[in-house]
């Protein structure tokens, strides 16, 4: 089996983001960037499947500016075999991302495509499902457990009510939840080895897909601030405040 894993470069999850004063977006210059956290789970799961002898090749792909390659390099360091970097100059919407991925899938013919369930920058939670629709493949979103069987996957999904298990035929798209696994760290020798693994560069404009934005971002602003609260000295005072001041109990 061949697994294609899509990874995205985003502002690191520990960074407190700042909104630009002109309302055009958030500050990304000189801000620490890293791989979107659930995309790390997607890579880890692919590597585990390969280690179990159920996959032959893992291809990591990212779409973005020049530096987005870092995320592919990181995937190569934890076990992906080769990389693809589709270059775009601007931020593109999930619909455009899924159209690009469809082109790559048609070229690479993977059996499975893995990615994180959501990117923590735009919080859209769309790309995997859109790609599945465009390919007319089944989708298993928010996966917290994946069992590879003969030509099918049994996937446990995290849903509001608890857990749901579905079976999807291969080829399939899986979007990964944070509890799917514990992503490993790359060892230094593997980081060195990863530098020798190939990353193919493709210009998005050569793929012949419409990636123009359909959504105008009119402004980005800070959310309203909560007014500062108080510290109470004791549990008695807390209960009294909740009862008589906030009137919530």
């Amino acid at each position: 089996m061949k697994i294609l894993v899509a990874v995205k470069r985003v502002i690191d999850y520990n960074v407190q983001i700042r909104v630009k004063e002109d309302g055009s977006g958030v500050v990304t210059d000189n801000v620490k960037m890293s791989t979107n956290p659930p995309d790390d789970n997607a890579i880890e799961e692919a590597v585990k499947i390969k280690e179990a002898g159920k996959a032959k090749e893992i291809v990591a792909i990212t779409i973005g500016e020049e530096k987005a390659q870092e995320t592919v390099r990181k995937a190569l360091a934890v076990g992906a075999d080769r990389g693809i970097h589709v270059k775009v100059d601007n931020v593109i919407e999930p619909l455009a991302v899924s159209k690009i991925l469809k082109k790559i899938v048609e070229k690479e013919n993977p059996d499975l495509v893995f990615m994180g369930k959501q990117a923590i920058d735009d919080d859209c939670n769309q790309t995997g499902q859109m790609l599945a629709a465009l390919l007319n493949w089944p989708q298993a979103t928010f996966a917290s457990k994946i069992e590879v069987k003969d030509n099918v996957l049994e996937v446990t999904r995290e849903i509001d009510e608890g857990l749901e298990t579905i079976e999807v035929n291969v080829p399939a798209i899986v979007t990964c939840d944070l509890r799917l696994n514990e992503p490993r760290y790359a060892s230094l020798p593997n980081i060195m080895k990863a530098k020798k693994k190939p990353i193919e560069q493709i210009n998005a404009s050569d793929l012949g897909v419409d990636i123009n934005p359909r959504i105008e971002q009119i402004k980005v602003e800070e959310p309203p601030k909560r007014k500062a609260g108080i510290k109470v000295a004791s549990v008695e005072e807390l209960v009294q405040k909740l009862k008589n001041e906030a009137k919530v109990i």
Partner: protein
Amino acid sequence: MSVLLIAEHNNKEVRPFTYNAITAASKINEDLHILVLGHQADDVAKSLSEVPNVKKVIHVDNEIYENYTAENYTSAIVKHAENYSHIVSSANTFGKNLMPRIAALLDTSQVSDIIKVISEDTFLRPIYAGNAFATVKSNDKKKCVTIRPTSFDAADKSGGSAEITKSDPAEASLSTKFLKKEEVKSDRPELGTARIVISGGRGMQNGENFKLISDIADKLNAAIGASRAAVDAGYITNDHQVGQTGKVVVPDLYIAVGISGAIQHLAGMKESKVIVAINKDGEAPIFSVADYGLEADLFEALPQFLSELNKLNTIQK
């Protein structure tokens, strides 16, 4: 211009967030129709026809819709989409799984998780775990929108009498099979709609200690939440997780116990009306959003909290 809302239900009852989505959808346009895809879900169709904001219910009854799969739902929805300017659903795991599949087939760039309807094409939505709000305008002809349910009140459930029309199913997908659902049954209110939520974090130290939380939840008729750290550590099941990747809650009272307040947790609760933080680390970020902070050891504070509650003559339920 009409809006088609996809109902979430279990063939017997409407799932509660559908009512919040109805409120938002009717702000986009008053001509709101609801699509019920189910098996023997007549009660669901009837309930929704009684919602005053609903103008029409389209009911498709077939065994392929007994268990929801995005694949089966999508082909039916796309069939009906032609007559509508907007396709909407709630932005919980139901709608998040479903809507992008529809949007891609309609060649529409979806607007996810809106918290405000500004006009029929312009919406407010949180990005970066709610640390920024983006105003976005969709230029697609047909719009696919998911609605953050906790940002809208639930619609009235009675007083209306919309017509119910029957429609035919679409072709079933053979590539996805539902196997099972493990629902966590509880007598407590649902986390997403509870008036009071009490949540525990890593500070709880283990799953048994959540009893301290559940005793108070019983007393206050509250739902129980948890931080991702507590869920990852195995103290409590995932359906309790509050945060960017868990549930977003907006209760009247949110009590965070032993939760430091990571960005991703705050994203799920900071819109709550009143926030209480109990933590022994006075520098914990959770205190920056708390209306009432108590710097204390939770293992002393929680039993005291319960005994103080027991002293009260009345407690609002």
